[in-house]
């Protein structure tokens, strides 16, 4: 097996491992909901917004600069250290998904897989953000399958293709549950009148 195939193999295992790991292993969790929305939280969200818009302006001409802006966010100090702030977790999950997409565009599949793994740690529960990360993870695996196929490694390519389908199917399951839950919430509001 070529070293490149070993790398992409590691990518697959890492992605699938994260997709199936129980919450306790992937969550950087702390008690939820105990932090009031304050200037500290808003400063972080404002920074997130600014960096994402920087990335908007950079990504077509200089994807590496867009990635750098988003990595600045993912590595920045987070508000209320030691406490879980759901908004920060959701923003980071979304940011890592975006970075992964940019990494794929740059053909850096290993970095893309790392981004997905990092992002899934911030979205352990079924949510749009977790579904999106799984979706992008499936796309990363799809890209890996194509690389392996082009390298003449049909068997490994087929395994990667199967992994991609698994991730994409899991993404669909998660997003379907999100839709069902939001429809159920709407029904609870109506029923309460």
């Amino acid at each position, binding site marked *: 097996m070529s070293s490149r195939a070993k790398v992409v193999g590691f990518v697959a295992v890492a992605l699938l491992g994260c997709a199936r790991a129980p919450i306790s292993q992937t969550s950087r969790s702390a008690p939820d909901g105990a932090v009031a929305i304050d200037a500290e939280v808003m400063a972080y969200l404002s920074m997130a917004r600014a960096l994402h818009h920087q990335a908007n302006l950079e990504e077509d001409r200089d994807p590496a600069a867009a990635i750098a802006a988003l990595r600045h966010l993912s590595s920045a100090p987070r508000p209320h250290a030691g406490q879980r702030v759901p908004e920060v977790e959701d923003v980071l999950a979304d940011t890592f998904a975006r970075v992964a997409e940019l990494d794929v565009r740059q053909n850096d599949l290993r970095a893309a897989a790392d981004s997905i793994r990092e992002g899934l740690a911030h979205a352990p529960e079924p949510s749009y953000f977790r579904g999106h990360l799984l979706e992008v993870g499936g796309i990363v695996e799809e890209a890996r399958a194509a690389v392996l196929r082009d390298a003449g490694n049909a068997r490994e390519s087929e395994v990667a293709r199967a992994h991609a389908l698994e991730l994409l199917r899991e993404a669909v399951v998660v997003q379907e549950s999100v839709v069902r839950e939001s429809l159920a919430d*709407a029904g609870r*509001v109506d029923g309460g009148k």
Partner: protein
Amino acid sequence: MYALAHPPWSTMLASVADADPPDALELERLVVQRAQGGDRAAMGQLLVSHGPALYRRVLLPRLGSDAAAKDALAETYAKAVARIDQFVWQGAGIYPWLRVVALRVALDMLRARRRVLLWEPDHVEREIDRAESDAPTDQLHLALSDEREARAKVTAALALIHARYAEAIRMRLLEERSREDTARLLGVTPATFDVLLHRAIAALKKRLQASDAPTAEHDRP
């Protein structure tokens, strides 16, 4: 080099407002959206913001007392919470809709109370009809219009009675002069002024009860 056909940046989310800072109306639209989604803090935010205007411009002038106006405001809030899903955003904010809810509550209370006040139930009914048939207008315009309407009602009511009675009411009640000062300015003793004011109020009540004609131009159908 592998060239992946990227998915669109979009996934499966609704588009949101653009990145420019939203104005107050856009912010309110988002709050209304949240309220209609069941967010009770958002619903409370709307009521706290608009309640004072509903009380001061719509309910208190029509119902005539703080107690009745607060009762009506409580009822207005309850109805607004129950029916928020029926509100359709038309670009003028939620106040016009809340105002109609408040007018309907006021109408019910006027029908039930049977007191002689400046607004008759059919006046309020016409106001509701006008509000529902006219194009939505913004809160400031409505508030100013309601204030003008209320002042016009007072002027029209005082025009129904003897000028000396109107003067007694204007000076003592609307200008808030003391009983003694008002009596002195009218050239009577305070005791005589008490009788004058009593007669003035009685005359006004009689004229309002007897009046079939609208007491302000806007009441004309």
